């Protein structure tokens, strides 16, 4: 059975709960079961949550838990570029990937949950 699940977050980390609740859900699924292989993709305004200068507050705890389970959130490089940002702006623990790689992950996933 395909166990791949993608949580894709396209909302900025400030001003609403979509970013933090998306990561909370991803963290919960990572920690709750080994029946699923969870990937987190930050796309669109979601990339702002991966910047080194962004204050992540409680979300840092979710990211730390995912790191313990070797889940490294992916950041779409094109979304960064469209916002005048690049790999150099990312905090440690985030990995930039191309839009074509994001497409590959989405098409290979059994489930995609969008925030």
């Amino acid at each position, binding site marked *: 059975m395909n166990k791949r*699940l993608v949580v894709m977050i396209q909302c900025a980390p400030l001003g609403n*709960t*979509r970013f933090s*609740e998306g990561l*909370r*859900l991803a963290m*919960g*699924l990572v*920690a*709750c*079961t080994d*029946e*699923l292989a969870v990937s987190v993709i930050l796309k669109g305004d979601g990339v702002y949550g991966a910047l080194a200068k962004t204050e992540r507050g409680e979300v840092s705890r979710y990211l730390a838990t995912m790191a313990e389970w070797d889940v490294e959130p992916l950041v779409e490089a094109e979304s960064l570029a469209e916002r005048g940002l690049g790999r150099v702006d990312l905090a440690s623990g985030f990995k930039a990937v191309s839009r074509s790689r994001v497409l590959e992950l989405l098409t290979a996933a059994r*489930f*995609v*949950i*969008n*925030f």
Partner: protein
Amino acid sequence: MAHIGILVTMAPCQFENWETAVDIADVALEKGHKVSFFLYDDGVLNPLRRQSSPPAPYSGALSAPYPGALRASAGIPCERFASLLSRGVAVLICGTGAKMRGLEARDFIDGVKIGGLPDFALLLTEIDRLVCL
């Protein structure tokens, strides 16, 4: 027969997502499929026991008489969810999300279960398709 999971993360009074979700569930049941809900984030606000009127009309709905027209919502969310429950649909609520909003079990209609992400993780291993609203 397929098992369809529906994740609802949006509140009922501002967005039409809940109505799309229960409409899909209705049709799926008619076709003999099994349906399970997980209500997360503001989605936990959908099956509140004390709802007494439908949400304000939604604008620009595809099924409105013309683009931009107002269309009344199809019922009261808690009543639609109660109907689904009576037909065997499972409705699971994120307990953390409920607690964040000051909600307890008694605030929800009969039949919903308060659970958590471990329950959703289990559900994901059982369903054939997932619809996210």
